[in-house]
């Protein structure tokens, strides 16, 4: 085992030096601390600067908006922030143009913080919820707001896995779009009653001012149907196999189920997968389980398409991004074109 980890640092230790190899392996493990799961799950990335650029939201306008806020309330001022986040997601922009998103329009105030769940959308692949938030005027202003981390369940008790969220603004006004992965088991059109719970709001950036909730909303959304294809497309290398087992195309996102396997043994393979289309990584997110089952979700609007052609697929094996491995082959590139049926 020590040899395996020492091989990640060929410039630091000779292969003929077992003591050095053990030391380097011990150092590797020493520095390889567990990362809090909450940190992995909740990126603090703020889109507020981008939102301001897209909106043409100069400082003077912000000042004017805050003055309006003082007169007429926060909702109307924070709404453009939410609008910019929502339309910045190409999949959500598509469903909004198709009039598939719904106004939820529910408000709750807890500990002086008002959360207004403005709109929602659900389909066979994801659930997206947009809310605005109004903090007390006395809240310390900090543009590095994180807002809330939420949980979403439905009337059957299903807990929805969180996908990345985006947020804008900060104190005293903010907006956030939460994304969740829909369960793979049901792709027909149906109504779903959801419960969204936001246990805490943070207005002052990491370590800053926090407000305890919870803010809880129960509401019903129509879930748009998806269509399923089973491409059974397999490609393999000398040691890795990749099989596309299922594709679900829905209006806001397209989901690809994949399986990574070793071709010469039964060992599990885990890593990250990046499909390339027109020379770029396909916009979206994904995750792989320890058994090699992976899901990729792209927010590119593909609902009207018949096929998707991948230039290539990049597979970065787990561990390769952790330690320096300048000479080791850690990334597999499967060259296309790979034509995936979407109908």
């Amino acid at each position, binding site marked *: 085992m020590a040899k395996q980890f020492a091989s990640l640092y060929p410039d630091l230790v000779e292969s003929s030096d077992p003591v050095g190899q053990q030391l380097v392996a011990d150092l590797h493990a020493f520095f390889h601390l567990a990362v809090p799961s909450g940190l992995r799950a909740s990126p603090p990335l703020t*889109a507020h600067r981008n939102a301001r650029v897209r909106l043409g939201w100069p400082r003077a306008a912000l000042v004017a908006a805050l003055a309006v806020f003082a007169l007429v309330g926060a909702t109307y001022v924070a709404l453009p922030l939410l609008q910019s986040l929502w339309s910045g997601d190409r999949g959500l922009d598509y469903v909004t143009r198709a009039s598939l998103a719904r106004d939820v329009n529910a408000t709750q105030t807890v500990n002086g913080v008002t959360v207004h769940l403005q709109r929602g959308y659900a389909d066979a692949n994801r659930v997206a919820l947009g809310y605005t938030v109004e903090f007390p005027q006395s809240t310390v202003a900090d543009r590095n707001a994180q807002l809330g981390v939420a949980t979403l369940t439905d009337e059957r008790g299903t807990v929805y896995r969180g996908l990345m969220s985006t947020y804008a603004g900060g104190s005293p006004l903010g907006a956030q779009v939460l994304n969740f992965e829909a369960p793979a088991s049901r792709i027909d059109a149906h109504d779903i009653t959801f419960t969204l719970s936001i246990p805490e709001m943070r207005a002052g950036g990491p370590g800053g001012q926090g407000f305890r909730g919870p803010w809880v909303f129960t509401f019903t959304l129509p879930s748009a149907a998806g269509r399923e294809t089973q491409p059974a497309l397999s490609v393999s290398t000398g040691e890795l196999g990749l099989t596309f087992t299922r594709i679900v195309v829905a209006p806001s996102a397209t989901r690809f189920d994949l399986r990574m396997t070793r071709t010469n043994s039964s060992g599990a393979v885990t890593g990250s997968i990046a499909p390339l289309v027109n020379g770029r990584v396909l916009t979206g997110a994904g995750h792989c389980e320890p058994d090699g089952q992976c899901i990729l979700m792209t927010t590119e609007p593909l609902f009207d398409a018949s096929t998707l052609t991948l230039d290539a697929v990049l597979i*970065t094996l787990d561990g390769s991004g952790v330690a320096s491995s300048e000479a080791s082959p850690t990334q597999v590139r499967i060259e296309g074109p790979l034509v995936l049926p979407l109908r």
Partner: protein
Amino acid sequence: MQSSVTFTNGRSAVASDDAELVRRAPGDATALGELYQRYVARVYRFVRPRCNSADEAADLTQQVFLKMAEALPRYRERGVPFAAWLFRIARNAAIDHARRHRPTVRWDSLTDAAAPDDVEGFVLSREVRARIGALLSELSADERELLSLRFAAGLSSREIAAVVGASEAAVKKRLTRTIQRLKERSNG
């Protein structure tokens, strides 16, 4: 369907992939999120020894990414790889944090669990962890930082050189010497 497969050098392939994400990130929250997922563990592990608790390190990690998101539109590679640029931000944030909070954590008392999923079961025993911590606590702050940039941040010698403002050759030499010294002390 015909598909050819090529193995590429992991680091260079990842670097070009980074470049694409970095280019898109200022206007694309998804790309920004992908950069976050790609580097969050490495940044956390780099800043953790400079903080008093895992929570404090998590907060500092998020601050690093907020700074990154703000500075990204101004980033130009110009010979400084993105990873090195990001860890410059992390290093500066960690220095500022240390000034404000005066961390009291000792390297030989860093007891966070290792990440068993990432190290495939190669988890250090408490005794070995304490021994390595004690060895590291005898090093200078600069030496510990180099090791941290290499093992926790996962940077190459070239990238470390860009972070600390030294030549690549000097970084390689210093790392090799430090490892050699640790080996000797470990045996002694």
